[in-house]
């Protein structure tokens, strides 16, 4: 490090002094770095609650899908964790925003029936997330899309039915068909996601 020919007499004292101070500083720096590293690594622990599922992404690619419990991932910027409610039932209004409070009037949506009558229909879709990675990473706004798909299915069904059937005998059938067809639409759309990616 130093040139021994310049100050032969002076060589010992500054060197030792420097070495000593340097060693102490090195010690503290090492300790600091160790603590910082430990702190940094300890941020990798996370818990997933009983009703949740988590998806881990490493550098943006899906690494693992984990269930409830305590888990470890590499800290930022390597791994990222997204948590979704997997078992709880979500709900969304078909064509309208659900009221915030319970017991409030649901506005519903106006639809044309097959015999050109106008009806106000209030329908609510309830769903659970079956595939968290699809829900998180394949669809931009999954919640509104579910509602909108159900709305299009409902429109298609109601516009092919006379009003009396919608009001009386067809109610349950409409519910069943909206459920079935919305599910089918969703499957078709998410299947589209998994089709081979286009490369250009």
């Amino acid at each position, binding site marked *: 490090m130093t040139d021994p020919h310049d100050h032969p007499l002076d060589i010992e004292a500054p060197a030792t002094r420097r070495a000593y101070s340097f060693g102490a500083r090195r010690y503290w720096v090492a300790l600091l770095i160790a603590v910082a590293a430990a702190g940094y690594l300890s941020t990798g622990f996370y818990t997933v609650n009983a009703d949740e599922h988590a998806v881990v992404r490493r550098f943006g690619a899906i690494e693992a899908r984990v269930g409830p419990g305590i888990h470890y991932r590499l800290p930022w910027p390597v791994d990222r964790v997204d948590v979704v409610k997997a078992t709880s039932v979500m709900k969304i209004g078909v064509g309208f925003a659900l009221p915030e409070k319970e017991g409030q009037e649901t506005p519903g949506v106006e639809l044309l029936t097959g015999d050109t*009558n106008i009806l106000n229909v209030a329908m609510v879709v309830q769903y659970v997330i079956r595939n968290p990675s699809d829900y998180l990473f394949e*669809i931009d706004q999954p919640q509104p899309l579910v509602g909108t798909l159900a709305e299009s299915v409902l429109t298609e069904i109601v516009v092919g039915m006379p009003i009396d059937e919608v009001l009386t005998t067809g109610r349950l059938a409409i519910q069943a068909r909206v459920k079935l067809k919305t599910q089918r639409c969703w499957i078709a759309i998410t299947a589209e996601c998994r089709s081979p990616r286009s490369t250009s």
Partner: protein
Amino acid sequence: MNRLPLRLRILAAAGGVALLAWAFSGALFTVDVTQHALVMRFGKVVRVVDEPGLHAKAPFDQVLRLDRRITFSRPAPAEYLSVDKHNVVVESLATWRIADPARFLATVRTRADADVRLADVMLGEIGSVLGTYPVTTLVAPDGNADRFRDVVASIRTGVASFARAAYGIEIVDVALLHITLPEQNRDHVFERMKAERGKMAKELRTAGEYKAKKIIAEADHERTHIEAEAYEQSQRVRAEGDAEATRLYAAAYGQNPPFYKFLRTLQAYEKLLDESTTVFLPADAEVMRVLRPRPSAGSIAPSVTAKSKSADPEPVVSLVRRGKQGAGSAPASTVPDAGAGQR
């Protein structure tokens, strides 16, 4: 000379490390699973990376990321004219994603822009498709799922081919929703609905009244029938009872005809004679026979005797009189007087 090279060397080392770090960090980039990454060198797209994960590039290359998730656009509702000149207001939904990032970047760039372009394409396509179908293809009360689907499918193919070629957008799905009538038709529709409901209510009411009347008539008929049967039965029972009574009477009287005659006579008196009765009869009238004071060679004495086992007719008359008095005092006196007067 000692310190300067040292500092220089430290500086050089630090600079070298920083340069290396810059080169290293600049040479690596991550691609998220939700993204397309476009590697741009001086503004030109040199590479599109779709595989998520860590990737390498030249440090001076730039990375532009586009969302590759499926999203949807909802153009504002618009009014269309069907081939049979009916107006319908239709809202539409296009579910899409970026299929060709380079093309998308060259033509559209942002998602908001894509929404606007797609809305234009959708409106045009829906207009031209709906213009070739009658309105009953969409709106019919017979469960027209197939025809409806045909319409939507032809809209979808039109939009999809155009959007793919022009904007690098892949249309995943197209749907129609909120099919309604134009605002100015709504009042008319509500009027008609009201009239229809009113008519239906009237029909139902009429049918109900008819049914009620029918039920009442049937019940009346049944009542008459039951009453007639009951009357018939009562008459029959009564007749049987009468016959039985007559038979019993006949049997009873047949045991002693003279006494019967006598009894009947007394009964006749009881009926004929009350407090204010004045009867004029020939003295030898059959009815008065018993009241005659003198015993004649009538047939009563033996009969009375036969009944009471008494040989003397006189007491019989007095007995009758007393019996009369027991029933009522006035007739008892009147009748003999009348009888005397008659004599």
